[in-house]
């Protein structure tokens, strides 16, 4: 599903002394099937932005389009439930939202709400558990007896089971150990490709944005500050520092290397191995200025 923001603004507690503009005339377009990373300093409007994607909030001004759905300030939104069945949101620390007696019941809750039939729900529970890397033995367990990482997986399975077209992920790997983080991102990426999803990832990790995203949007004070391909956006050190963001570590290293050795190695989302090969070529006096 295509996602378009046209001059969207959102003000918290409008017409009160506490009015606060969280989104300010924001416009962008995300073509269907794109993996987008949204990056910004704490308080830049990332979380408010994603609340627009399934109609949890309505813009104060401007227009949000998600496929055929439209959200504007003027009209009361129609078919919200239908929108929410298409846009699955994994909020921060989603394991806090678990509530049912068993894993199976918790995962079933979403699809049941959207009117999916019992046999289909069962199929989806099995499939979603498998997708998040939990065995079928878990269905009858209480979600509250699981470890933090397992609880997170169950909560995510609950979103996947609604079969969304758009998957919104708000820092889905926060608090997981390195292997858990990697497995989870690989799982989302696999899902993104196999189900042809439009995926929106809110992240602090420049490395994840580089690895998985086709497109990056940088927010600052509720407005779009930069956008483009990760390898184009993430090399702009000064511009990023202006909004309290850092370049990915590899970019930082390449910059310092280039300064010290008077070379012009570019950042091309290369692996450490590829970078090492390029450095070795310089040191061994090969073609040094490529």
């Amino acid at each position, binding site marked *: 599903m295509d996602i378009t923001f046209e001059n969207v603004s959102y003000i918290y507690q409008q017409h009160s002394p506490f009015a606060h503009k969280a989104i300010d005339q924001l416009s962008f377009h995300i073509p269907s099937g794109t993996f987008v990373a949204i990056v910004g300093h704490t308080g830049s409007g990332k979380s408010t932005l994603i609340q627009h994607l399934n109609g949890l909030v309505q813009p104060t001004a401007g227009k949000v389009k998600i496929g055929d759905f439209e959200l504007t300030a003027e009209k009361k939104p129609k078919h919200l439930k239908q929108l929410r069945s298409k846009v699955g949101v994994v909020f921060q620390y989603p394991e806090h939202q678990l509530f049912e007696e068993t894993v199976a019941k918790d995962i079933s809750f979403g699809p049941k709400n959207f009117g999916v039939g019992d046999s289909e729900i069962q199929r989806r529970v099995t499939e979603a558990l498998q997708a998040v890397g939990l065995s079928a033995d878990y269905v009858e367990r209480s979600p509250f007896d699981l470890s*933090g990482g397992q609880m997170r997986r169950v909560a995510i399975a609950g979103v996947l089971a609604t079969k969304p077209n758009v998957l919104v992920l708000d820092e889905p790997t926060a608090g997981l150990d390195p*292997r858990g983080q990697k497995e989870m991102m690989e799982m989302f990426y696999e899902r993104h490709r196999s189900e042809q999803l439009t995926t929106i990832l809110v992240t602090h*990790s420049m490395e994840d944005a580089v690895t998985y995203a086709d497109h990056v949007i940088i927010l600052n004070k509720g407005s779009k500050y930069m956008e483009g391909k990760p390898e184009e956006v993430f090399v702009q050190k000064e511009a990023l520092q202006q909004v309290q963001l*850092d370049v990915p*570590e590899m970019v930082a290293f390449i910059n310092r290397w280039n300064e010290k050795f008077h070379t012009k190695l570019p950042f091309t989302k290369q692996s450490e*191995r590829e970078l090492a090969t390029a450095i070795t070529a310089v040191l061994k006096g090969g073609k040094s200025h490529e």
Partner: protein
Amino acid sequence: MSSNEKLVEFRNVSFRYGAEQPWVLKNCSFEIDREEWVAIIGHNGSGKSTIAKLMNGLLFPQEGEIYVAGKKVQEDTIWDVRKDVGMVFQNPDNQFVGTTVQDDVAFGMENRGFPREEMLQRLDDVLHAVGMVDYRLTEPHRLSGGQKQRIAIASVLAVSPKVLILDEATAMLDPRGRRDIMQTVAHLQANKDVSLLTITHDLQEIVQADRVIVMNEGQVWDESHPRELFSKQDDLLAIGLDVPFIASLAKALKQTGIPITKEPLNHEELLEELWTLHSRT
């Protein structure tokens, strides 16, 4: 009793949450010296947070003994032990009790019945130590996550613990907040008479520690200096951890035939070494 130098001592400690439950810690022994900075790393569920909870008597081991500043940790000593062991937890929003920064920092001191004059002196001192002296009257919700954690650290320091434990205190922060905390911690280490125990699964955060204890499945898997540890890349990956960018680049360089001798801990060290090699050729 244990010697002066040993501040914390775990002797063959085993722990499980219930008789039917699996062992979370299995026969763990290690020591932390005075003014030492020890980092504990391990994957989720490796037992590292349990260590912290055992250290100040939030939990008690089924087997083995734990000593803090010469006292054995048990029911009748926990109140004394807790004076020596200060803890900062993961979630910055769960550990604020005051309506302003100074109220919050004062809370622990009030509980201990410190005289007012001393409280004012200490308040000033700890807010300086964490670089938050300009925020004395700020309300907590106006602080960033990193700032909140710095206040949490200040509140603990105010009552002069002998050891400060940071239990994944940076896990919920953004990269800037994380760096902030690590700088604060390094500054404390250099300027305060306190031992540090930082518990993390982020290998970036162990670089400055004096010693690293690696936990795996409830056991002490390794104890070494960060530099040695970074060279054990494949082993770390095998137990669910990751190595920092600089260590994996150094490894890739070695594989492409660059003779790196000193395992680099940061960009400068690697660039220096490469420069030396470059000048020689």
